[in-house]
């Protein structure tokens, strides 16, 4: 699965994806490539198709046509569950955490661990102790130190802490790609800084991160490459070094086009 611009296999690739909702066009032949260990920002105006594009990979939407590849293997995700099993984890804007459940239960929600042996097989007893210990370990590995009490209900946490739980849940299970949908939209300055730090930490651990954001300064701070969506297609892929924020906004609105040879279609890291 090598494209003409790259020798590295993309961890995640989409080819001419189309998705319509009744008479509304979400994706109109969109392409995307992401390479190992990079932060790819996906930006675009409202209705440019960035959320739709991402939701195809997280399993929330099924594209009408086009091809999707994860680690060079063709996939067709029918549900978020299948996407997770395929190694693509998504932190949705709504975070998808159960407020009344504790942190450990949330990390393991939908993939609970049973006790070994008779208790687990016959009585289907959950191994709460193991889940708690491993949750604490995952949080520690991710450098999240603000969550001390793993049995605390998520609803008692601040916005940034909830985000941390949601990200930890994605990062904890050996996934290859993590998609973050507007992770800082509801956060203050300090908490946003923490989440951005977390994104960089994830990349440093070798994960690939897709960041959907409206916030240009944040995008320019952490992204390796910037995928600009426009009218359901890919308008351009640039890097924070090659183009300025104004350029990106211009590409978003169609005021500027970038010739293909000036784009960053291959890996930059």
């Amino acid at each position, binding site marked *: 699965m090598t494209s003409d611009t790259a020798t590295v296999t993309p961890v995640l690739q989409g080819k001419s994806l189309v998705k319509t909702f009744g008479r509304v066009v979400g994706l109109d032949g969109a392409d995307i490539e992401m390479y190992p260990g990079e932060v790819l920002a996906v930006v675009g105006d409202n209705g440019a198709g960035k959320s739709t594009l991402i939701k195809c990979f997280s399993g929330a939407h099924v594209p009408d046509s086009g091809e999707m590849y994860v680690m060079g293997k063709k996939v067709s995700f029918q549900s978020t569950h299948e996407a997770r099993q395929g190694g693509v984890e998504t932190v949705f804007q709504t975070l998808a955490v159960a407020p009344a459940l504790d942190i450990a239960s949330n990390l393991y929600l939908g993939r609970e661990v049973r006790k070994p042996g008779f208790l687990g097989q016959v*009585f*289907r007893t959950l191994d709460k102790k193991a889940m708690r210990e491993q949750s604490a370990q995952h949080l520690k590995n991710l450098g999240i130190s603000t969550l001390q009490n793993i049995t605390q209900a998520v609803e008692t946490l601040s916005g940034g802490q909830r985000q941390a739980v949601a990200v930890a849940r994605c990062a904890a299970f050996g996934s290859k790609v993590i998609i973050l949908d507007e992770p800082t939209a509801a956060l203050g300055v300090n908490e946003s800084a923490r989440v951005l730090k977390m994104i960089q930490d994830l990349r440093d651990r070798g994960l690939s991160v897709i960041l959907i954001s409206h916030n240009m300064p944040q995008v320019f701070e952490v992204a390796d490459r910037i995928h600009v969506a426009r009218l359901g297609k890919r308008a351009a892929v640039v890097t924070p070094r090659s183009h300025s924020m104004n350029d990106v906004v211009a590409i978003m609105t169609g005021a500027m086009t970038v010739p293909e040879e000036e784009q960053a279609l291959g890996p930059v890291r």
Partner: protein
Amino acid sequence: MSNPSTGTADLAEGFLERRTPLQRVQGVLHKYPYLSPLIVLVVAIIIFYLLNDRFLLPQNISFVTQQTVIVGTLAIAQTLVILTAGIDLSIGAIMVFSQMLMANMAVSATAANVLPIAGQSPYLAILLGIIAAIAAGSLNGFLIVRFNLPPFIVTLGTLSIFSALTLILFKARTIQGGEMPDVMRYLGQTFKIGEFQLLYGVIVMVIMYVIFGYILKNTAWGMHIYAVGDDPNAAELSGISTKRVLFSVYLVSGLIIGIAGWITIGRVGSASPNVDPLINLDTITAVVIGGTSLFGGRGTLLGTLIGAFIITVVENGLSLAGLDQAYRVLAVGILVILAVATDQWIRKVKA
């Protein structure tokens, strides 16, 4: 820590743990939702004992547990449903339908409509009654999941449907205990532990509380019930099939209702279409007083058991104190409103 990405606070550290006594109470109640009903129950028992010391005699305690068995068992089903942020108004109607079916199957002289299938072995009759209740619960679940209808409306409909079916099929005839084989009334028999007269039905109820308490707390299915009631979208995005969880909850609640039907025949000593018409509301009352949130995702079965006992204790205690039945209704009404108000307050808890 001076690193802003990991540190919390340096100077304010000492204030973080500082909370007002009221916030502490709120926090504790949030963590243990069955505490407030437990306090109510204990206070009620003390008051009623002071009003009339016969209240705590073994005979009276035995009587109270016997009084609790029907609503207590049905309230397990109601708890499961309410935890998913649903409600089941048809519990009483399905229970009556199921026990009437059991009774009619087990006798040979019955209404013409069901005569061809009557006169079965009592075991088969009980089994079929329970299966009918499971089917009825599944019907609720199917309508709610398949057509995305609100549980309130669906179960309001099936409440009427099963009440009517009971009257149509069984011609509203009460089947007396003497007509039925003994097995049918088995759970209504008592045995003695010291001075206490315990109902076999109470044992069954307690076992069911233990089983379902275990399931809710220690299995993935139980976890998913809470998650679905808490935030169905989040549950779905976490890879939980919310529809499957919802359907299975209504199906399992049908099973519980069926067993409650058998217990009811024993407890009442006959099978009548008019047994306890208020039972529906009583199950909801028990669940709500027991600290389970009507908005779903929060609550315990232990709380429900306590809630069921509160209802019968208040009823029994007030009548022992020489007060009219109307005061019992009044007291329960006030308790329900207090319980919901407490729940709203507890939900606002912050760390």
